[in-house]
């Protein structure tokens, strides 16, 4: 596997290797954060010194379908002992699904001092590195955040509708079966939380996992990524792009790839995604 610095990424600094993390386990300026799909994984063992940030418990509003607000983010960061100067390193299962989702939400609050551990939990485990069940505690801080900025990297339903009508590109990062709507028509199949199946008109289907090497969960080099998104799908770095999936988690992974690894400046994540679109009255759907 090529070193991160030699893979041609627009922003190689947002990725750190497992080696780098191993060398910074006791660095007071670094906070390692695990975010997972499986709620048992962190408790079963994690990188020494890592705290857990759960997408559901910690990052979502408990009542409304929305993310935590400024006060909630300040409380979260203070609890994990972070300051605006703390380098937050995210990692997790499912090739960093939830790690990139947490990274995305942290960017809504402008915590740019953030990294993803390339390969995530899978690579760390495969390399036989240390895991512990000890939950660390850090002196709380008094973190001050700015208001959440939903304008730059987040898209809402009406904006997506306008985007579709203008004919701008979208990337549907779900599986081909979800994209085609076939999944919603299988007998005994849970309906994935939507009444209608299919995809948003004009969306290109690029399953999120195509951006990673399945063996060790690391990101593919820029050239391979460009071959997929540009060569095969015809996207270009100047495009205004909206990515979506079912609830915005897998698409934050693709948002990360397009924005940071390929350096596209205008990519937004539609977190309402199919669970909103497939339930919305009157919006256009393609199959």
């Amino acid at each position, binding site marked *: 596997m090529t070193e991160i610095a030699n893979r041609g990424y627009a922003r190689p600094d947002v990725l750190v290797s497992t080696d780098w993390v191993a060398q910074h386990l006791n660095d007071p300026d670094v906070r390692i954060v695990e975010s997972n799909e499986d*709620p048992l994984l962190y408790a079963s063992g994690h990188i020494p010194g890592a705290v857990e940030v759960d997408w559901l418990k910690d990052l979502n509003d408990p009542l409304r379908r929305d993310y935590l607000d400024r006060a909630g983010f300040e409380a979260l960061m203070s609890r994990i002992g972070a300051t605006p100067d703390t380098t937050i390193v995210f990692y997790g299962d499912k090739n960093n699904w939830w790690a990139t989702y947490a990274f995305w939400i942290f960017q809504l609050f402008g915590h740019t001092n953030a990294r993803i551990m390339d390969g995530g939990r899978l690579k760390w485990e495969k390399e036989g590195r240390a895991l512990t069940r000890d939950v660390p505690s850090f002196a709380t801080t008094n973190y001050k955040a700015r208001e959440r900025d939903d304008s730059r990297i987040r898209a809402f339903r009406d904006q997506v509708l306008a985007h579709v009508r203008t004919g701008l590109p979208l990337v549907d990062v779900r599986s081909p079966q979800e994209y085609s709507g076939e999944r919603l028509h299988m007998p005994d199949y*849970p309906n*994935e939380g939507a009444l209608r199946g299919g995809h948003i008109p004009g969306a290109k289907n690029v399953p999120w996992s195509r951006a990673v090497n399945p063996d060790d969960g690391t990101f593919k080099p820029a050239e391979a990524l460009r071959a997929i998104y540009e060569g095969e799908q015809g996207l270009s770095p100047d495009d205004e792009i909206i990515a979506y999936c079912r609830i915005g988690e897998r698409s934050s992974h693709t948002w990360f790839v397009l924005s940071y690894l390929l350096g596209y400046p205008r990519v937004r994540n539609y977190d309402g995604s199919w669970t909103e679109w497939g339930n919305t009255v009157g919006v256009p759907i393609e199959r």
Partner: protein
Amino acid sequence: MPDYPEKLATILEDFNFITDPRERADYLIAFADRFEEAPAYITARPDSERNRVPACESEAFVWVEPQEDGTLQLHFAVENPQGLSAKALAAILDDCLSGLPAEEVAKVDPEIVFAIFGKNIAMGRGQGLTSMVAMVRSAAQRYLAERQR
């Protein structure tokens, strides 16, 4: 809770008493550690894709194997090594339902997932797990329907 087989009822009662999320996680992890993959003669069947649990992020498979005495033997496979929740649930279902008459297995409700995993299962996170229970139930129901013909 409906009238569940004794072992399942006991385990659900245990989970009902757990209020500390950490304790619940430890209890579940202990089940996951006991998980055993389905034997090769089961996984090698050509129709394995039909046994895949829909919406399960952990790539889980369920097989229900009828025995001569009318009981059912459950088998599970979990392809994602990090799919601890799927493994824990599989171990619980195997422990509580394998070896019971099909009538008993057919009674199990996917709702048990919420009793077992607690409130942290929401926003679709529990979908694969409830599908896993639903697959066990519908396989038992199918077996019963075929037997009656």
